[in-house]
């Protein structure tokens, strides 16, 4: 029996990346003329930056066996408040901060409500904020989108670096760098710091974490704050990219984010998952949409295929994992 424990462990943790590669090959074969153009690849990166940030935040929540349904609304509220601030002519560094700060505020409400009110499951608390925060986003804008942001505010969402080798509009998007910084920071936090490990412990056995002296409520609040912050940052990128804040941004974003996290191998029951997996999950969702669009698949068929491919991608991953482990 050929069996390599190191390889098996690697496959177990990061094999989902293989699924990404397979998808890329399939799409490239279907439209070789389009898929591999620098412009299209740049598009994929730009279009999925917001989802990546939101999914990273959602991931931290899911590691604690929680859920944050309010991310889409939080993103929308961040977008419209920063767009309002921009239109009111506040200095751009202040405007830049507003998006993430609004996210943090919503996260605080979620976390504190959850722990202080002792609600049975974050589903309820964040379903509440899903509705309430979206309502507030509509109220502050009276339902109308607000466009015309300061160029500095737009920078992160819109700029790209062609490095002298790509023809515009291709290049390394600034939003990719934001995602990379967040992902690396989150990875370091989760793997190397005490609080990060406590997040995993709470997902594995909250009772065990408690008796080990972990401040479970404190960590939970932090976790929802991180998720809110990421959603706010995602809002900043999206506002920059679209040059506007619209209150119906991010509808159903929570489902996409959760899907990316679970596709990436995290467990809904907490305690398991990796940052790399989440990014792979985001890419799978993004590649899927891109592949269908560049093949001009009609919107009805897109739905059917998205459904089938999601199941299929996860199934391949399951098979791979089972193959990697002898029993």
């Amino acid at each position, binding site marked *: 029996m050929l069996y390599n424990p190191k390889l098996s462990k690697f496959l177990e943790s990061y094999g989902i990346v293989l699924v990404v590669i397979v998808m890329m090959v399939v799409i490239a074969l279907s439209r070789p003329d389009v898929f591999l153009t620098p412009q299209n690849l740049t598009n994929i990166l730009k279009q999925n930056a917001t989802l990546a940030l939101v999914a990273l935040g959602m991931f931290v929540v899911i590691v604690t066996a929680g859920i944050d349904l309010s991310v889409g609304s939080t993103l929308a509220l961040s977008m419209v408040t920063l767009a309002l601030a921009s239109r009111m002519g506040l200095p751009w560094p202040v405007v830049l901060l507003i998006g993430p700060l609004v996210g943090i505020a919503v996260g605080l409400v979620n976390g504190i409500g959850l722990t202080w009110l002792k609600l049975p499951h974050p589903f309820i608390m964040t379903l509440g904020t899903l509705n309430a925060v979206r309502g507030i986003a509509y109220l502050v804008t009276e339902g109308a989108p607000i466009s015309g942001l300061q160029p500095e505010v737009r920078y992160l969402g819109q700029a790209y670096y062609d490095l002298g080798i790509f023809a515009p509009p291709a290049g390394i998007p600034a939003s990719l760098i934001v995602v990379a910084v967040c992902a690396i920071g989150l990875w370091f936090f989760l793997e190397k*710091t005490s*609080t990060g490990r406590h997040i995993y*412990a709470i997902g*594995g*056995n909250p009772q*065990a974490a*408690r008796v080990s*002296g972990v401040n479970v409520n404190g960590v939970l609040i932090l976790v929802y704050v991180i998720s809110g912050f990421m959603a706010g940052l995602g809002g900043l990128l999206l506002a920059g990219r679209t040059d506007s804040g619209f209150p119906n941004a991010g509808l159903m974003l929570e489902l996409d984010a959760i899907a990316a996290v679970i596709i990436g191998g995290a467990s809904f029951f*907490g305690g398991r998952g990796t940052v790399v997996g989440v990014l792979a999950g985001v890419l799978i969702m993004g590649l899927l949409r891109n592949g269908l669009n560049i093949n001009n698949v009609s919107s009805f068929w897109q739905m059917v295929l998205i459904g089938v491919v999601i199941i299929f991608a996860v199934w391949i991953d399951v098979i791979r994992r089972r193959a990697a482990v002898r029993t």
Partner: protein
Amino acid sequence: MNGTAPPLLEARGIAKYFGAITALHDVNFHVGRGEVLGVVGDNGAGKSTLMKILSGLYQPSEGELVLDGRPVRFASPKEARRAGIEMVYQDFALAGNMPIYENIYMGREPGIKLGPLTIIDHKKAREMARSHLDNLHINVKSVDQNTEDLSGGQRQAVAIARATAFHAQLVIMDEPTAALAIKEVGKVLDLIRRLKDHGVAVIIISHRMDDIFYCCDRVIALYQGTNFAESPLAATSRNEVIGWIMGTKGHTESLAHDRLQ
């Protein structure tokens, strides 16, 4: 142990209700510095519940705890731990998704402190865990194994290692030898003696008279949720203690026939 100096930890008039169920009522006891106290009692007598109150996991419905002569309330195990009280739980209370060494050092990770955050030195934690487990003569394949993949005895050993990895004033052990093989039982009992020598108080719950009579200074018995009997070890005998567990005082020879020749 009494006289002028107050006992290390004292419990007065403790009661605990779970809805309709009365698990404890009017329980009183104390443990002194460096004393090894054995707690015995029938299944469901309330031993574990009492210990969970001492370790801050449960709040008592009535009664109070006195530490070093000062009344205390532990709102969480974190506070009890800060007061120097560690516990080995009967169900081990381990995070199954995490490796052995992280379970042992959880909440007190070695590494660089940055305010509330510690940047963990995983290498050091692994080494510390390995040497600590070796000290206890506990045999695991690797400290990187997740605890959910361990055998029952290995899990119990990890729980014991966690409670004894740091300097405590009082270590509470809820049936610490139940799942252990013979050699490991000996090591744990020796460990308790060593802790005592270092001035650490130990409360040990056990159904095995061997354990109680090997290392305790004093033994108390709970019966149906309340104090039943108490005695220095020297002043009692196996059969008497077995009688207490069954709720009888005095002549017990007849009751103890089947297990002790």
